[in-house]
């Protein structure tokens, strides 16, 4: 049993590192080759876990090789548009200028029911409101509505709302993010003063503190553990 525990720790660490190296895509957005690699890695890694008579290398080496091949392939696809189209395919325009392209639906083996389901997931129930619907290479659908059916924007109403920008996290779960404080051009003294002004008891007493480009703060005090 000790062997199983140690092997599990090793394989788990190896796969976590491999997935981290592969990149940030969420599982549902993987290209076909990436999905194959993800599925294969999980299967290959499980063999030495299930059978302690199988050397650990029989699981680790294929994982490393798959990871390296995936990195090489991704690099090649970055450089070669042709290879990218060959391996990932091209997006398919299912609705073009409001008209359903039936040949593309047949090519993608997409039924009307599936098309309507995907549109509903995008909060679109009226096909007449859709100008373009595109099935991307990862299988997801992008929808562009006619302007008169889309949500109104401040620009269309001639409004100019304040732009808060991207909030910076200064304190995360009681820990100070020093580089963010530095990039704001503030120091520790300013931070302590700000925390006192908002009734917070120091860095460790703060669960979350963010500040945006307008200087607006969001604070959340640390809750006492039960």
């Amino acid at each position, binding site marked *: 049993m000790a062997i199983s525990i140690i092997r599990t720790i090793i394989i788990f660490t190896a796969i976590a590192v491999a997935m981290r190296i592969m990149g940030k895509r969420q599982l549902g957005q993987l290209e076909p080759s990436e999905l194959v690699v993800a599925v294969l890695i999980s299967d290959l890694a499980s063999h030495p876990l299930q059978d302690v008579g199988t*050397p650990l290398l029989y699981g680790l*080496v294929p994982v490393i090789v798959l*990871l*390296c*091949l995936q990195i090489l392939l991704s690099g090649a696809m970055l450089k070669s548009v042709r290879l990218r189209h060959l391996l990932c395919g091209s997006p398919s325009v299912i609705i073009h200028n409001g008209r359903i392209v039936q040949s593309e639906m047949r090519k993608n083996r997409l039924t009307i029911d599936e098309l309507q389901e995907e549109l509903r997931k995008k909060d679109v129930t009226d096909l007449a409101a859709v100008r373009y619907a595109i099935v991307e290479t990862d299988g997801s659908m992008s929808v562009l509505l006619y302007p008169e059916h889309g949500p109104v924007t401040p620009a269309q109403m001639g409004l100019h709302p304040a732009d808060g920008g991207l909030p910076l996290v200064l304190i995360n779960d009681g820990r100070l993010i020093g580089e963010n404080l530095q990039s704001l051009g503030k120091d520790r003294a300013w931070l302590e003063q700000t925390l006192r002004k908002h009734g917070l008891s120091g860095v460790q007493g703060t669960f979350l503190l963010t500040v945006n480009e307008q200087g607006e703060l969001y604070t959340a005090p640390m809750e006492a553990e039960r």
Partner: protein
Amino acid sequence: MKKEVLAGAAILLLLVLAAVNVSGVNAVTDQVSGLVRDACDRAADGDWASALACAERAVSVMDRHSTYLHMVLRHDEFDAVYDALEELAGCLQSRDTDAAAAQGRIARTRLASAAQRESVTLGSVF
């Protein structure tokens, strides 16, 4: 670009290590197989003491490389070879020529099978 270069280098390194591994496994199995053949030949000539010494040297070579072999061969394969060598030693101790010859053949077959599994051939790839 750096990641791709490292990935390519890692694959090349693995290929080189694989080649070294094949060579290593072949060296051990050839050495043990040779000792087993010697043991059987000497037993056939009636030189039981020297035949047993050869068999025990074969076992000791397997012991010396057991950590490495356990890392690169399936454990049951290694155990099967080891068991065959122990059986051979037992047959030689009891001076049973036919049994010793049979065990010797079994040991050499299992050694060849273990070596072939690591070798790159059409049979092992497919």
